[in-house]
């Protein structure tokens, strides 16, 4: 059986802080996603937020396992995903979950569930 024929995919986390206009509170949320092109994805996020961004964690592996990792994260954190306009749910974990918890969750999954996913050193 060969289920790992695709080009490497990347699963990433990054943190974003913003000041809530109504309360002046600083809110920190964690974004996650997958891509085959980290540079292009980084440009995309920078274009949205208007400043440089830096990945907080990147893991690489075969497409199926990376997709499954993302799927598992969505499942595990489904009740904590940020819901915005028209209740649209985004790939952002809300501020009630610390970044470290999400990172620990990912590292545990990579260690215990997926055979071919490795952590990349973040540039």
């Amino acid at each position, binding site marked *: 059986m060969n289920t790992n024929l695709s080009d490497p995919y990347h699963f990433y986390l990054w943190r974003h802080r913003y000041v809530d206009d109504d309360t002046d509170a600083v809110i920190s949320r964690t974004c996650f996603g997958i891509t085959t092109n980290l540079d292009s994805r980084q440009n995309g996020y920078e274009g949205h937020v208007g400043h440089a961004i830096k990945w907080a964690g990147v893991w690489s592996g075969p497409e199926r396992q990376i997709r499954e990792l993302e799927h598992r994260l969505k499942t595990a954190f489904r009740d904590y995903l940020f819901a915005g306009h028209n209740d649209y749910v985004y790939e952002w974990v809300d501020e009630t979950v610390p970044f470290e918890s999400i990172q620990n*969750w990912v590292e545990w999954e990579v260690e215990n569930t997926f055979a071919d996913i490795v952590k990349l050193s973040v540039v």
Partner: protein
Amino acid sequence: MTRPIVSNLMANPFAPAPKAVQTPMVSTGNIYDPLVSRAMAIANEDDIQEAIANLRARLQGEQYTQEHFGRLELQPASLVDINIDIQRLLEIPHIGKNIIELFDPRIMQPLNVIYIKETGRYSAWEGQQSGTAFALMMHFGLISPDTLIQCKVVDDDLRVPGSDLVGEAVGNLGFRCINYKGRKEPDLFYIYRSMVNGVRLYNSTLTEDLQANEIQNTLQAHNMFAAPGLEARGQKAKPGMITHISSLLKLAGHGTDNFDVAKADLDWVLAWHNKYYASEKGVDGGYLITFGRFATLCREQDIEITKEHELEFYQHMKRYGSPKAFHQDCKTRYKRMFGGWSDACLLPIWHKDYMKRGGTLPLPTIKNYNEYKSL
């Protein structure tokens, strides 16, 4: 390079606690939703607005009134005819098993008939099977001979706004509307729920209800719940949610004499999922089919499913990622080779891949294994 994954059956300790668990088979609070307010709740939906606009255009300013709906009458069965160019053939096993054997006069629906003024007789375009059952039960003395049959009657010269049809043409269209596009078959979940609630709410002793209730008890024992397919559409499936009700019932031998034996197969399949895949978004239908068949074949061929099977299968599943990913992998491979899809390939692919990876545990013989060797 692929690294070995050490068996670790713990759930991820860093997962946040889910906020809500949803397992209802009955509603909470008032179960009576007034018809009019229930209708008004969807009045502004696009589908409704578009349909209303189209019907309004067809009516050209006219309005339906009471007379357009026909009338309800009680008539002797001897005055009812079946238009055999409109109706289908008699479904004899259905009439016997599903209508007569389960008969309850309170559940029988009125026949839909056209009143032919020239002959003074009633042409039934809907209700043939139950009308036939009615006549048979009367013939065999189970219904009193003076009992009349309820009919919804439309005169053969009745015209209604927005339609050129009249007489038997109405029945011809009506047959198609009621048996085809005009009635949406309910998701099997609602039938299953009805059977379970038959026992839990209404003390039913019907075998199909008692068996469904046992299946529901098994689901609950393994932290699972049934739900209509609509609730899992998109990415909405929740851990423990089962929407593939037909596989659930089939696996347990629901409605068969084999139920008392086969229900143990279901128990193992759900227990295994709950132990190893509790956080998956829903219980994948392909998983139920694959391991349901595996459990059934093991039972039939006297192969004991051991803890080693569970552990090795768990390790093997990791090569795909999850039960859902295994299902998807099979679909991709089948489509590439044959086009389309057949779930008959699921267990053969599982066996083949497991053996190819060096699996040594005993597996049952699968009749159609060779058909899928090339996948």
